[in-house]
């Protein structure tokens, strides 16, 4: 009997908790529950809150229990510029389909449209953010997913604008299919390891489309970075994989498709760099493999600033760049092999698809332009071609061992 009672109590407990799990709370402007905060207060763990279409003027909404919050037809949550809008401090929270506007701007606190703090297994998807300071801010959290969000900022100056998606001390986060524009940094990772950034578009941001700081073992692939202040910056990080991304039209005096600073053991494979002032700017980066990338119509395809050792550039296409490679020293420890250079003028007598004379990608003129930038105006002049030719015959200013011994005759396809 006692045993039966125990069992039935247990069953009832399981049953009620199951009901609790499936319970749905509706929020709309003329329902009994008309604010999101009160809905959260009434909800039990694992409830679902459905927010109907309408405008909700609320800020500092704290989600402190595992809930699923779903917006129907994109309800507007208006922060009225007063501060942070949604803060998640519990594990297993899902936020889906909201339209958040008017996040407060502060110079002392990083107000975000949605902040996740010390939580695990969160999902943030189908969110639209406008008029924001920081967009989605993930702080000391892990195993989360950020999908299909659209972040449209209106940043004008760097000092008073925030980042679209920011990760801080957060590991194992997946960021996919997001669209970020007009913020400071599109996506920013600081001290965040093992993250996957895939299929995002980051455009017209003030600073970087994607920015890594002290983050290791991350992968970013199939993203598009277009027309940002300075493309993508990868700094002080190790073992990052950069695959199949597109870097386009990052124009300006300090604009790069990709900026590498103090990066070790990375892989850069299958990316496209098109019409950037500088395709890749490398500084203090070692043991990086560059393979199967396309460098098309850039001002400088690759600019090597110094302290770069044991990098390997294999099987890339360098097409119609004003300068293929620029070096500022005479020392070279990097390997260039089996690339296709559209500026290669050699021949292939034995018809094995590999040019018979080595190609020297560093021109004397790029050395002169490094010294006196104004001379760029003499680009493609006959005189410059002549001095480049004489330098090619007997290198004096450029590293004499920097050459591609197996330049390919035909453009590589993969």
């Amino acid at each position, binding site marked *: 009997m006692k045993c039966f009672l125990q069992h039935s109590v247990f069953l009832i407990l399981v049953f009620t908790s199951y009901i609790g799990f499936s319970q749905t709370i509706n929020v709309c402007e003329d329902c009994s529950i008309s604010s999101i905060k009160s809905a959260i207060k009434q909800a039990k763990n694992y409830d679902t809150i459905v927010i109907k279409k309408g405008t909700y003027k609320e800020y500092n909404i704290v989600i402190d229990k595992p809930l699923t919050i779903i917006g129907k037809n994109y309800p507007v949550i208006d922060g009225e510029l007063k501060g942070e809008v949604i803060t998640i401090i519990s594990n297993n929270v899902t936020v889906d389909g909201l339209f958040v506007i008017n996040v407060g701007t502060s110079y002392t606190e990083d107000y975000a449209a949605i902040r996740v703090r010390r939580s695990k297994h969160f999902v943030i998807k189908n969110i639209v953010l406008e008029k924001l300071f920081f967009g989605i801010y993930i702080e000391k959290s892990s195993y989360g997913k950020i999908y299909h969000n659209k972040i449209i900022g209106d940043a004008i100056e760097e000092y008073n604008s925030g980042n679209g998606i920011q990760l801080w001390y957060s590991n194992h986060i997946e960021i996919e299919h997001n669209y970020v524009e007009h913020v400071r940094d599109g996506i920013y990772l600081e001290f965040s390891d093992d993250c996957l950034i895939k299929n995002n578009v980051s455009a017209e941001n003030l600073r970087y489309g994607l920015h890594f700081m002290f983050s290791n073992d991350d992968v970013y692939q199939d993203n598009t970075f277009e027309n940002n202040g300075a493309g993508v910056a990868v700094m002080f990080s190790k073992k990052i994989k950069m695959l199949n991304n597109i870097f386009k039209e990052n*124009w*300006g*005096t*300090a*604009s790069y498709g990709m900026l590498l600073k103090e990066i070790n053991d990375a892989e850069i494979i299958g990316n496209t760099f098109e*019409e*950037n*002032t*500088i395709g890749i700017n490398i500084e203090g980066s070692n043991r990086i493999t560059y393979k199967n990338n396309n460098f098309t*119509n*850039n*001002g*400088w395809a690759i600019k090597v600033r110094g302290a770069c050792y044991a990098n390997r550039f294999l099987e890339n296409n360098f097409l*119609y760049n*004003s*300068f293929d490679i620029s070096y500022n020293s005479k020392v070279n420890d990097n390997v260039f092999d089996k690339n296709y250079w*559209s500026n290669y003028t050699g021949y292939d007598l034995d018809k094995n698809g590999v040019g018979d004379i080595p190609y020297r990608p560093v021109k004397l003129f790029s050395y*002169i332009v490094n*010294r*006196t*930038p*104004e*001379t*760029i*105006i*003499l*680009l*493609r*002049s*006959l*005189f*410059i*071609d*002549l001095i480049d030719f004489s330098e090619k015959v007997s290198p004096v200013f450029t590293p004499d061992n920097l050459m591609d011994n197996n330049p390919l005759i035909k453009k590589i396809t993969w």
Partner: protein
Amino acid sequence: MLKILKYSFFDLMRSRWSYVYFAFYLLLGIVLLFLNNDLSKAVITLMNVIIVLVPLIGTIFGVMYFYNSKEFTELLLAQPLKRSSIFLGQYLGVALSLSMSLILGLGLPFVFYGLFKSNTIWDFSLLLITGTFLTLIFTALAFNIALSNENKIKGFGYAILLWLFLAIIYDGIFLMTLVLFEDYPLDKLSLIGTMLNPIDLSRTLILLKLDISALLGYTGAIFKQFFGTSFGLIISFIMLIVWVVLPVLRIVFKAKKKDF
């Protein structure tokens, strides 16, 4: 003037040299397209050719034509005709027939290759416009040289020297100046230096289209204004027109005073 223009023009159209010139460009266009299979790369190569060859051919041809038709010019001078119309007619006849060879010779292969369907059409038309300008400028300069020098050998010598100077030596001096004075702000100097040489000017004009991403790499407000907006394009065209007008004015002026 129109009558003389027409006469010079048709005279040149019948001559072997225009055909050779036309055939050369035709062949160049076909070979480039055949080897490259890529319009935009062909345009870059063509730019190098046009910037160097068009001025050379313009100067040599202009000087040659002037000396060859000297007897005919003297015959015309005996008629009641204005001197300016005689010389301007001859000048325009040469310049126009050369430009036509250039435009047709390069245009035909590109049109057959599908220029109108590709997006390099603007780059290409810019190329032809600068080529035409260069022809006009250098033929005028050649006429100036021929008018000032009775001696044929001297005239040819000066013509080649002029080309050599503007195409190569000028850039060398320019580069040396920029490197020597690298401690000073050089934005203005470099832009002015470019304006003073028609070959550099047309090169810059084409660079604006082809290498804009590299040009924007330099930090300088004046550069940025010049290259980043249509300002540069407009100024360059105005300067090219000035470069045509000044030598032509000198032809008129010189022809009036010259004793034949």
